């Protein structure tokens, strides 16, 4: 019984980071699909992606490691590969954000609203008018 609990505790300690990150990811995902305001959706998308980045960097962390820049006192370095991938992914993320936000500005200009419900209603009317 004792060993079982020990296992649970060590398992949890080895994974708490992932669990919190999953919570963050899913909250961001919820904001994307659950909210109707377009700006909030974009914020949610950013939170979602940023949390995925934390997941990647957690994968790359090594206990007792240090930043992967040569250092005389280093015992071991953390894995640099996830860092590189995430650098790229961050840039991709900001590109998407910029495009999404400029679309929102145009949508506001065209529909005079940025609420998905209202836009949907207007579009439906338009579909019927045609």
């Amino acid at each position, binding site marked *: 019984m004792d060993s079982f609990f020990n296992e649970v505790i060590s398992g949890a300690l080895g994974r708490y980071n992932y669990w919190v990150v999953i919570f963050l990811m899913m909250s961001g995902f919820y904001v994307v699909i659950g909210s109707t305001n377009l700006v909030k959706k974009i914020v949610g998308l950013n939170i979602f992606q940023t949390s995925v980045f934390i997941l990647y960097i957690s994968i790359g962390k090594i206990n007792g490691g*240090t*930043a992967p820049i040569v*250092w005389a*006192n280093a015992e071991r370095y953390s894995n640099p590969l996830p860092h590189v991938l995430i650098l790229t992914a961050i840039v991709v993320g900001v590109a998407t954000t910029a495009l999404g936000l400029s679309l929102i500005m145009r949508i506001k200009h065209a529909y005079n609203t940025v609420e998905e419900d209202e836009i949907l209603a207007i579009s439906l009317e338009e579909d019927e008018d045609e």
Partner: protein
Amino acid sequence: MFATATIALLVIMCLALVRAFRGPKIFDRILAVNMFGTKTVLLIAVYGFLTGRPEFLDLGIFYALINFVGVIAALKFIERLEFYDEREER
């Protein structure tokens, strides 16, 4: 020594975070964000000493810069918002 400073900074950040959540006015939030930013800069500095690799202070410089620009941008754009709106922010 550095550990104590780190913990204190984390506490201060938490308090600023609470203010940022509670508002009630936009300006309160910006103020809280500003304070949060400066404390993050200090945290980076202290954390560098804590782990024995303080050479990453470039990051601190950069955070201070970004924080300032963020606050200025917020203020600049607020001027344009319809914010004589007396509604309390939720």
